Structure formats: structure tokens, C-alpha cells
């Protein structure tokens, strides 16, 4: 497993294995739920015969392995199944909602990673210069412990008091009006990025302090490089990997947060779709959205793994060996 190609293969294989495990777990979990898919249609008083009829109609009378394979086969070929509620292909329903959530998550990442990295580096450097970064720690703890919906509510309140008219405006798809859409998405994305920014900042700060202990940093100081030169030449690249990694891990948190943020800001996204599906016991939609969320997380982490090989040449060749 040496060399960039071997490394890429390992990362992809790991991602694929994770996805197989996720689909199995989702399938087993939802098929083990008492009641069964058909009771969504039938209610509690239906006869055994009607149960059997609907089951046959939905293909639920086939053996479970067969059902699983046909479901996974559908996912691979781009067919996520059919909503029990609307009887429409889930793919079609997601096509409207996925862009909104993707836009929200991407915007939140675009805000949280640079902002968190800048805060973390500032805190780390201040710490190195012997200034206590108590403020940074308080801010970090605050960002990690205040729930998204509180942040969102406060932001909405402040923005509306300040007379920012975009607050009340309803969602506009990015494809129709990129600028207006992004402007309306700013507040939701800010609320969503609040938590992630704190996490990125803390990770970055710790990474800066760890890098500081390396001999090459002593050498840089001994060469008389300025703080800015040291940050630009040596710190940025050496803390980039932890930042990329935590950015990818945050995708999970952002998707979870999107459920709530989409509610607060009335964004017709996947989160809202998933919550509605759970409430209505629309099992195929629940399965599809869970798999989709897991896929986003797995892809983000695989990309972070691959990027790591380019950022740190030691990882590109082989796993880091302890020195």
C-alpha cells in the first residue's frame, strides 16, 4: 500500500466498505421496525389479507436478501425507490431539495473552515508569544455548547432588529438567482457554522501548539524569521491536515444541524424532507436520506484522506512512522 495509487485504492476501498455496512444497517434497522412498510397505507384495523396484498404489491413478500440486493442495486443505478406517501420517485423529490441543503452545508463549510482556521492560528500564535488565550478558550467553549437553534434565533432577532430585510425573504433556488439565493442563505449558514467554527478553531490551535514543539520551528526562529513568515512558511501547511480532517468530520455535524436550521429558516431542504418522512413513517424516504447523509460524510472523509497525501508528503508515500 505504498505510493499515491495504492493509497487512493485503500481510501476508496475503505469508503466503499463503509457504505456497504451503512446500507446493511439501515436496511436491517428499518425492516426490523414493528408494523412494517404496508401499515402506512393500511392503518391498524386492516385484515391479514389486505396486509398480504399490499406487501406483495410493494415487493415485501420476497426474501430479505433479495429485497436488500434490489434496493442497493437501485441506489447504485440512481434509483432510490419510491415514496410511500407521494408515490413519486424519491430521486425526483430530492432533486428539488438536495441543492438547498448542499448550498447550506457548503456555505457553512466555506465560512467555518477559514474562520476557524484563522481564529485557531491567531490563538495558537498568541499562546506562543506567552499571551494567555483565555478569551479564545471561552469563545471556543461557547461555540461548542450553544445549540444551533439558539444561535439561529438570536441571529434572526438581531438581523431583523437591524432591519436586514433578507431575513423574512423566502428560499430562492441557487440556479435561479445565485446572488440573491446566497444572500438569503447567509444567515442560516452563519447559524449552522457557529458550532463548526469553534471546533475548527480549537483543533487548529492545538495543531499550532503541537507544531511549535517541532525542531524545524526552533530552527525557523533561530534563523530570525518573523512570526508572519513562520506562519506562512511552516505553520499553515503543517496544520492544514488536521484542519481538512476536522472539516470533513464536521460534515456530519453540519448535516445534523441542517435538520434544525432548515426548520428555523423554512428552507425546503433534505433535512426537512427527512424529518417529515420519519413523522409519516415513509420508510423508503427515511432509508434514502440516511444513506445519502452517510454518503456525504463518507465522501467528505475520503476526499480529506486523499488531500492529506498531497498536503503532507510523508502520508503520500506511506503511513507516518513514529520518529
Amino acid at each position, binding site marked *: 500500500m505504498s505510493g499515491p495509487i495504492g493509497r487512493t485504492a485503500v481510501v476508496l476501498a475503505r469508503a466503499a466498505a463503509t457504505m456497504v455496512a451503512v446500507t446493511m444497517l439501515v436496511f436491517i434497522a428499518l425492516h426490523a421496525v414493528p408494523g412494517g412498510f404496508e401499515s402506512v397505507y393500511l392503518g391498524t384495523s386492516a385484515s391479514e389479507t389486505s396486509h398480504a396484498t399490499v406487501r406483495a404489491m410493494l415487493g415485501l413478500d420476497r426474501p430479505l436478501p433479495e429485497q436488500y440486493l434490489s434496493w442497493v442495486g437501485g441506489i447504485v443505478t440512481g434509483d432510490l425507490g419510491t415514496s410511500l406517501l407521494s408515490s413519486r420517485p424519491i430521486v425526483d423529490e430530492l432533486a428539488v431539495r438536495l441543492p438547498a441543503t448542499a448550498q447550506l452545508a457548503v456555505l457553512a463549510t466555506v465560512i467555518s473552515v477559514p474562520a476557524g482556521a484563522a481564529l485557531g492560528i491567531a490563538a495558537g500564535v498568541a499562546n506562543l508569544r*506567552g499571551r494567555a488565550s483565555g478569551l479564545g478558550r471561552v469563545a471556543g467553549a461557547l461555540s461548542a455548547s450553544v445549540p444551533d437553534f439558539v444561535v439561529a434565533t438570536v441571529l434572526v432577532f438581531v438581523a431583523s432588529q437591524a432591519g436586514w430585510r433578507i431575513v423574512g425573504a423566502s428560499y430562492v433556488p441557487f440556479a435561479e438567482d445565485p446572488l440573491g439565493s446566497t444572500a438569503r442563505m447567509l444567515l442560516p449558514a452563519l447559524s449552522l457554522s457557529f458550532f463548526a467554527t469553534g471546533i475548527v478553531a480549537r483543533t487548529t490551535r492545538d495543531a499550532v501548539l503541537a507544531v511549535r514543539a*517541532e*525542531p*524545524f520551528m*526552533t*530552527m525557523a*526562529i*533561530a*534563523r*530570525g*524569521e*518573523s512570526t508572519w513568515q513562520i506562519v506562512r*512558511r*511552516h505553520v499553515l*501547511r*503543517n496544520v492544514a491536515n488536521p484542519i481538512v480532517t476536522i472539516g470533513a468530520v464536521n460534515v456530519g455535524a453540519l448535516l445534523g444541524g441542517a435538520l434544525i436550521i432548515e426548520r428555523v429558516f423554512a428552507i425546503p431542504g433534505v433535512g426537512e424532507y427527512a424529518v417529515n418522512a420519519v413523522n409519516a413513517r415513509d420508510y423508503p424516504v427515511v432509508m434514502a436520506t440516511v444513506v445519502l447523509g452517510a454518503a456525504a460524510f463518507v465522501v467528505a472523509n475520503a476526499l480529506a484522506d486523499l488531500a492529506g497525501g498531497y*498536503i*503532507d*508528503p*510523508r502520508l503520500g*508515500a506511506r503511513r507516518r512512522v513514529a*520518529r
Partner: protein
Amino acid sequence: MTLLDVRDLAVRYDTPHGVSQALDGASLTVAAGELVAVVGESGSGKSTLGMAALGLLPASAQRLTGDLLVDGESVFGLDPPRLRRLRRTRLGLVLQDAAGSLDPTRRVGRQLAEHLDRPGRADVLSRLEQVRLPDVERVARSYPHQLSGGMAQRVAIAIALARSPGLLVADEPTAALDTEIKHDVLRLLADSCRERGTALLVLTHDLTGIAAYCTRLVVMYGGRVVETGPPDDVLERPRHPYTRGLLHAVPGQETVGGTLRSIAGSPPVLTGPSAGCAFAPRCEFRVDRCDARRPEPSADAARVLCHRDGELDAVVTLDEVPEVSR
């Protein structure tokens, strides 16, 4: 001309784990272009001395007395911009961990280039050739982890000497290298410094290994300089009992059938200024006044820090060590 002037410097570390006195009144001068080896065990204070010369003492270090001057200016009195300027223009550093001394994420050619006045490709390659690296094209393209320890140390030396500093401090530069490579790297250090007129301050525990490459030996013990002089004098006519002990503890120096003697006891861990001679508890020649009074350096160039300097030659010579083997 005096380049480095350490005057009775005392430095103490205050850490959560306790207090330790690393330097206890160390004095040393290094002239421009001089090749000086500071020899001592771990804990002798040599690293603290080296770091102090670059103004690199950690925040836990506290200067109690004395001063350290580079080019006649105290490094303790410089504000950060002027200290950076001094480091950039006049000082250089080489550490034991050669591979760790280089930024792992960047090609070594680039790392060298940013410290050259004319950071072109040709200059990078010629600098790498100057430190006697083979296949310089490949080395310049390499990342640090792709180089051997010896090659990485040569690159580190090239970077440290890029601006021809007045003083290069090398802290155990070869301790992590294979024996065969050790001498090549030490010779490279000495030759490169000689060519540039750069003074070299090598900090090492390897007394005999360094002797061939320096113009002066400085022996440190317990945070003080206990003896100094040209290598031949120190090796052939050591005057301080500790230096004598060190020479006896060197493998290969013993006569056939003789025993390799080590210095009994272990180096002191000082928590404050030593009341008397720091070596007294381990010294074979100790008398009462050794414990009671701090020794002052002898008036001659060797600056021997021993109460019994001059008396001992009458007592023993190097070949005729006392019977007591401890």
C-alpha cells in the same frame, strides 16, 4: 575580535517539575572564526549556553546573573525585531535531530532557496554541492523524509550557513548519525565555517571525537566552564580532575589489559548556585576547601576551575593514576 562573550552567566529553569540551575556562572569568549567545541555531559549546561547565544531560552528560563554578548551587544537587552535581525544576519543553528530540523511538508530545495540572497536554482544546487551532497538535483527535489540522517544534516548545515553567519551553534550535530558519517559531517562543519570565517560553537559530549575539528576545547561541568585550551593541550595535559576523568572514560584510550574507568557518581542536578566546587563529590582529589568555597578560574588562558590546580601535577600524572579504583 571577540564575537561571543559570555560573562559569568547564571540561568535557572523554573518548571512545574521543579527548579534547576542550568548555568552557574559560565564564562566563555569566542573570537571571530574560532572553532570551539564545548564538551560536557547532559546537564552540564552546554545546551542552555548554546540556546542563550541565539536568544532562544524558553520562557521558563530565568537569567540570574551575568550577561551574554554577541558583537558587543547583550542578547538579553534586544527587543524582538533587533533580536530577529541579529539571528538572521549573524547567527546560525544546527540541531541533533537533522530530519526534524527541516519542514516535513516542503521540498528541501525550496527551504534552502528562501534563505539565499539570490534564490535561483543554480545557487541552490551549488550550495548543496558545497555541503558535499551527491546527486544535488534529486536532493533539491526531495522531501526531508526521503533523505538519510546524514544528508538531512548536510541540508540543515547549508541552510544555517546560507547567509554566512558570524557564529554557528551546533548542538550535538552528529549524535544521531552513524559513526562513519559522524566524522564527515564534523569535517564539513569545520571546513565550511573556516571557509566563511564563521565561528563554530559545537556542543558535544564526545571529547575525543571532536578534538580533531576544533581550534579550542571548552570543558563544562555543573553549569560552569572548568577548563579550556587548544585540543592538544587539553587532551595531553588535562588540568581539571573532571577532564582527566573524561579522558579515562573514553574507550580506546586505555592500555591493553587496563580497565576502562568511568567517573564514579553522577553529574549534579543543581537547584541553586553551587556552594563549592560542583565536581567535588566525585573528585578523587577533594580537600576541605573544595566543598566550602567556589573555585575561581586560574589566571592563565586555560582558566582552570579547580582549587588544587597546580598542586595536582605533583600528586599524579595522567599515566600514573591513583590506585583507588572506584
